[in-house]
């Protein structure tokens, strides 16, 4: 139940708590009320439709490297 996935903010609504995010090529709405100063382009951790954390570019790089190593080892 505590599953959360990283997604990218592609647009923000005027109310500043609704965003459209890109989740692996799928676009969906997300609530960003729980994070400070959400910006288009931010990577966020999404749980049950809500952003619960922001990732830095270093965090995204680390995650991509982990996924790349996993993919390489399963080939």
């Amino acid at each position, binding site marked *: *139940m*505590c*599953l*959360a996935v990283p997604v990218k903010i592609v647009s923000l609504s005027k109310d500043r708590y609704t965003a459209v995010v890109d989740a692996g090529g799928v676009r969906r709405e997300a609530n960003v009320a729980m994070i*400070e100063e959400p910006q288009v382009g931010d990577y966020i951790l999404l749980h049950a*439709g*809500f952003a*619960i954390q922001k990732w830095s570019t270093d*965090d995204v790089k680390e995650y991509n490297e*982990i996924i790349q190593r996993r993919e390489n080892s399963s080939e």
Partner: protein
Amino acid sequence: MNVDKLIESISNKSDRIGRKVNLMEVCGTHTMAAFRSGIRTRLPQQVRLLSGPGCPVCVTSDRYIDHAIELAMTENRIITTFGDMMRVPGSRGSLSLAKARGKDIRVIYSPQQALVAARKNPGREVVFLGVGFETTTPLVAWTIQNAFSQKIPNYSVLCAHKTIMPAMRALCDSDDVRVDGFLCPGHVSVITGAEIYQPLCREYHAPCVIAGFEPEDILLSIDMLLNQIISGEASVEIQYTRSVTTEGNKLAQDCVNDVFEPCDVPWRGMGVIPSSGLSVRSSYKGYDAELKFPDIRVNEVKRDTGCRCGDVLRAVITPSECGLFKKECTPDNPIGPCMVSSEGTCAAYYRYSRIDE
């Protein structure tokens, strides 16, 4: 570091320790990730992963399920819930069964959808089944704050939210099982921050590492726990640094503290744990389904099914030691919640474990 190197490092450290170590993954999402990736089968035999009480659906009482079903019996109500709750058996069937009998029970992805349903159905009462740990609680708190500020009177929450630390403390106090270190829940810790585990180190000398959910994250966290055991230290370390901070998510914490207050609640298999639950504060009492519908009264009914989910949740036994496992109790015919939930220990063992586990 790649997985093979981490396994090698863990094996070397396990040899140095020279005894069996019990590491508990507290979170159900970790349990499933460890099984699904196959890393459990690659760990040395001396390193044992125990599954703890971190599946919120699994620790929810029969009485709560009965209460939710009873609320659904009135025509004017819409019950909204996460999908995991649907097939959990109460003493009088499941939500799934009630839905099959025509009751308006809707599976939703986000608590915000429950609020939207309330706005779209002003003539009906919408109840959200508030089940979950610290990761989920702020989201539900947000819906209550917004129902209040937007004056949506037909929304309420049947609250069974719990906090994980009191349960971890209860496990440390128990003589049932010795835990040599905790893989602390990653996404709970995003909200709470790392500091909440300090009492486990100070008072119980229990090493704690907050772990991410990729196989490499879990293995690195195990390696970090073994380092602490070798050095005789007990501290809180964050492996999942890309998501977890020392102080946590303040906005989420403030939202929870505004809406909820601690209360004593029962945990399946663990009894009542003081201050381990959250109830709706009196300032939002109009959104507490238990208070809003006082005519619905449900008593705890003891079921004698032979189900040992309570012992599984305390890691006293593995699922295969339960007499019902893979016989009467299967994913198609679950007797207890640990076989129902997608993060339940019994469901994980059923799908992924080796015959000898």
